């Protein structure tokens, strides 16, 4: 069971027997009032989403999903192709089902494919991935614009906030659970 304090984007839960993913989450607490955990939940099978405000003592069941390790091969339009390293079986997962994961997929990456009743409905990525910066405004030494971060584009098309000294060609470690920059990695 997950308690409200465990709630975060990307959490996979089970409601009325069906798997849901928390696509958005925010914590509020009006002065002297109770903590409020507002979440947006998307049904991983139907794609239907709803919003609900939870309280401190509320809990949600963990999603009962089967996992299998597969390798990402390539994408064809809206379909992403994965292959089982042992059986060489291939399957397709749609861009909609992958959700935010498309921002971090690189060729030959191993992921956990999540299945419900034998059907693939999403993936869990490794906690960290390394991605190359493909577009960035150049860093001018002595730049006093006073900004603590700037946006850059990564090889997957994902845009991320990074420190001002990051340049095109740099390889960055990204936390896939939150989508934030962790550090620059040396090749």
């Amino acid at each position, binding site marked *: 069971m997950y308690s409200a*304090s*465990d709630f*975060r984007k990307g959490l996979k839960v089970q409601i009325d027997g069906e798997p849901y993913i928390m696509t958005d989450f*925010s*914590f*509020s*607490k*009006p*002065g*002297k*009032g*109770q*903590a*409020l955990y507002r979440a947006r939940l998307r049904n991983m099978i139907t794609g239907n989403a709803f919003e609900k*405000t939870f309280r*401190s*003592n509320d809990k949600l069941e963990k999603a009962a999903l089967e996992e299998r390790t597969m390798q990402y091969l390539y994408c064809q339009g809206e379909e992403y192709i994965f292959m089982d390293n042992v059986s060489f079986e291939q399957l397709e997962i749609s861009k909609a089902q992958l959700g935010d994961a498309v921002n971090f997929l690189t060729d030959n990456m191993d992921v956990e494919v999540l299945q419900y009743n034998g059907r693939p409905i999403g993936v869990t990525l*490794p*906690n*960290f*991935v*390394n991605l190359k910066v493909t577009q960035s405004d150049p860093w001018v*030494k*002595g*730049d*006093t614009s*006073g*900004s*603590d*971060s700037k946006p850059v584009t990564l090889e997957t098309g994902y845009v991320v*906030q*990074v*420190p001002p*000294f990051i340049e095109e060609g740099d390889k960055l*470690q990204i*936390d896939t*659970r*939150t*989508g*934030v*920059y*962790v*550090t*620059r*990695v*040396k090749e």
Partner: protein
Amino acid sequence: MRGKVPDVMPLAKSPTPNPSRQGRGVKVKADPKPGPCATTMIPIHGLRLRAVLIQALRNFFIDRGYLEVETPLRIPAPAPEAHIVPLSSESWYLQTSPELCMKRLLAAGIPKLFQICKCFRKGERGDRHLPEFTMLEWYGAGSDYLGLMADCEALLRYLAAAMDKGGVLAWQGRKIALDPEWERITVAEAFRRYAPCSMEEALVRDRFDELLVEYVEPHLGLITPTFLYDYPAELGALARLSPVDPTVAERFELYVAGLELANGFSELVDSAEQRVRFLAEQEGIRLQGREPGPMPEVFLAGLETMPSAAGIALGVDRLVMLFAGADHIDQVVAFMPEGL
């Protein structure tokens, strides 16, 4: 003193990559959860602005004859509050607010005092919350909540001038004017205007906080800052009740661009009445499955000699967010807990 952010800022030393985070599969600590800002990015610009703002804050109070004090962070008996959970420090607690000590100083004969200090609240983490955060509290003997509202107006206008804001704060796409008269609206009126049911009904159905956050708060402080005042009596445990309407406590909250900034009230100085309120809060704590801490006996005894006064708590990190145009509290503090 003009609190200007310096024009030429030496470039920050780039953070060296943390070797323990390199490589795949290295797990970040499971608790607390990572926030939307990178744990390794230090917001240097935000910190410089923060330092200048806090100095201006100090000057405002010193110029007006307030004494700056430092009271213990670690105390044996925090004020019991149903929805604020203190962190333990062995058999004592880290303060959730310096309120009890500040009031004892008022009772000891310091008529005007302020403090900028860390407060600790368990489980509070989000875009606008940190479990360890910075609070500004000020108290004035002989003042009341209307006097505090006037203080807030003077304070924000002073800070805006010191930071060259031209009387306007820009935040999340909104421009809030500080110079015209600020909006004042009672909690009951705000519910009438913005919420799907009345304040009374919201209380009865235990939906007050939810409806306040979802329907009311987004409308507050959008043109000028807004004072939301006259809270229901049951939501002002340390506040004096209105002599005109005892169902209402002389408590207000200050909102700027929908952001809750400060909480102030005319102080309750009746020790017996305060004990009754504390007992009710302790009951509220038990109802949530927690054990309350000790009753603050020394504080209650000290109330006997406390003068009539008013006091207020203002979130300094949030104040910096407003002046820095920062959407997220992580952008105005040196380190978030997840980055330690």
